């Protein structure tokens, strides 16, 4: 049985004046422990699909199952990281990372210790009683990662989590996130529009086309790149070839004259 199964998902947004189809007939499967990326131009419904997988809303048609069960947010099995950290500015770092546990009524001393330990492993010792705005962008995004991991989600969803950071911080965080997830054997889905990021972090890349969002092609990243850290993968000799393949495919999606 597949870990995560997205089966024939359609989604249409309705407004008074229009009905926009964001996703059309998406079917895909993700294995346990796998890291996959959703890559595509803007308007291809990546974030919509992620929200549906997270159970934030139901698709117009189709089903999403995690370990054979239909997804629901109330189960608290999903971790979701957004483009910006969205740490609550009026809560201390400690209150922020324990938020998920508090919401799920599972704030035991064990889990609290686990969350604080994670914070330490992310290189953020001694910031517990500080407030988010006292931290730098990269630190805050690391805190957001701890907050997401603290509830020990089965599936982690990363919605362009590095796009608001400067390049250097982004590269460092890619390594940190990739290593951490590998260490815990977490299944993860990364939404990105950065080809390099998709290649260097994932095992498989799903390429989407836009209007309506459709699954265009799936690329399997060669084993030698998967075993490297994202930073090293970018410098690996196998990297340019796969980059070119995906680049050409992306170009072919866009009608000439656009952009």
């Amino acid at each position, binding site marked *: 049985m597949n870990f995560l199964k997205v089966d024939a998902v359609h989604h249409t947004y309705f407004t008074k004046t229009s009905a926009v189809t964001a996703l059309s007939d998406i079917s895909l499967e993700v294995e346990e422990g796998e890291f996959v990326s959703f890559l595509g131009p803007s308007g291809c419904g990546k974030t919509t699909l992620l929200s549906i997988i997270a159970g*934030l809303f139901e698709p117009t048609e189709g089903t999403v199952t995690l370990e054979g069960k239909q997804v629901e947010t109330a189960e*608290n099995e999903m971790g979701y990281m957004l483009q910006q950290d969205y740490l609550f500015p009026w809560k201390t770092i400690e209150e922020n990372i324990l938020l998920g546990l508090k919401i799920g009524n599972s704030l035991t001393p064990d889990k609290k210790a686990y969350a604080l330990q994670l914070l330490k492993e992310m290189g953020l010792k001694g910031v517990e009683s500080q407030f*988010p705005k*006292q931290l730098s962008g990269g630190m805050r995004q690391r805190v957001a990662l701890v907050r997401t991991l603290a509830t020990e989600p089965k599936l982690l*969803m990363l919605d362009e989590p590095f796009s608001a950071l400067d390049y250097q911080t982004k590269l460092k965080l890619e390594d940190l996130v990739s290593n951490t997830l590998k260490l815990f054997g977490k299944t993860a889905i990364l939404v990105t529009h950065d080809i390099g990021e998709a290649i260097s972090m994932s095992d498989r890349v799903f390429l989407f086309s836009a209007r309506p969002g459709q699954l265009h092609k799936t690329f399997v990243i060669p084993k030698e790149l998967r075993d490297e850290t994202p930073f090293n993968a970018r410098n690996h000799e196998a990297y340019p070839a796969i980059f070119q393949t995906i680049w050409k495919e992306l170009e072919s999606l866009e009608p000439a004259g656009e952009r």
Partner: protein
Amino acid sequence: MSPQENVKFLHQKYIQSLNREKKWVRFYQAVIFIVFFSGWELASQKQWIDPLIFSSPSKVWGLFLTKIQDGTLMVDLGYTLSETVFGFILGTFLGTLLAAILWWSPMLSKIADPYLVVLNSMPKVALGPILIVALGPSFTSIVAMGAIISIIITTIVVYTSFKEVDPNYIKVLQTFGANRFQIFREAILPASFPTIISTLKVNVGLSWVGVIVGEFLVSSKGLGYMIIYGFQVFNFTLVMLSLLVIAVFATVMYQLVELLERKLIKNGS
């Protein structure tokens, strides 16, 4: 001089210039105070202004001392102050509660929308006579005046701020499986504290208006009664005294709200 010493020296100079500016601000504030009151006193004694209408600081001070000694000022002040504080708290609390209910039920908020607009544009003090007839010429009706004047505007302002909370905070909580109550407690309410505090500041002033008008109408006790009574018997020293006391205590209430603001809003700044 080493660079470090130099920085220290420059920093000291900077602090000195700040202090100097502060002293000048205080000085001019004192000047305005003194010029206003001594000008008033002088103008009154020289009959440049009619002392019967405008009274004078010395007369007001004399009356203040007499009314302190016979205790009547404290009684009136006590009434007005407690009415205002109750009206203020009630108005803000009920307004916020109403806003929370509207946020909870989008359907209800759509239904209530035109009624809120009508109620908000209505001059609330015009409801005074009805309140007094309905609740009796008492403490209750004056508190109700103090509350009703601020409740609708509080509802509208706070509800707007509830709606404007960044939806991504809500998304974070939803992915943790939060229910609507948890979303309200963890994100909506704390994110709106700054707005609630600023409505508090507005409501301090509004409640005073409601209570004073209420006392005008009931005319039995309180600072508002002192004003209306002084007006009727043409004792404007009494009116001026009442005004000055109101000014002082309204300011104190405002300062207390600011103190609350500093306590409530903590984000490391």
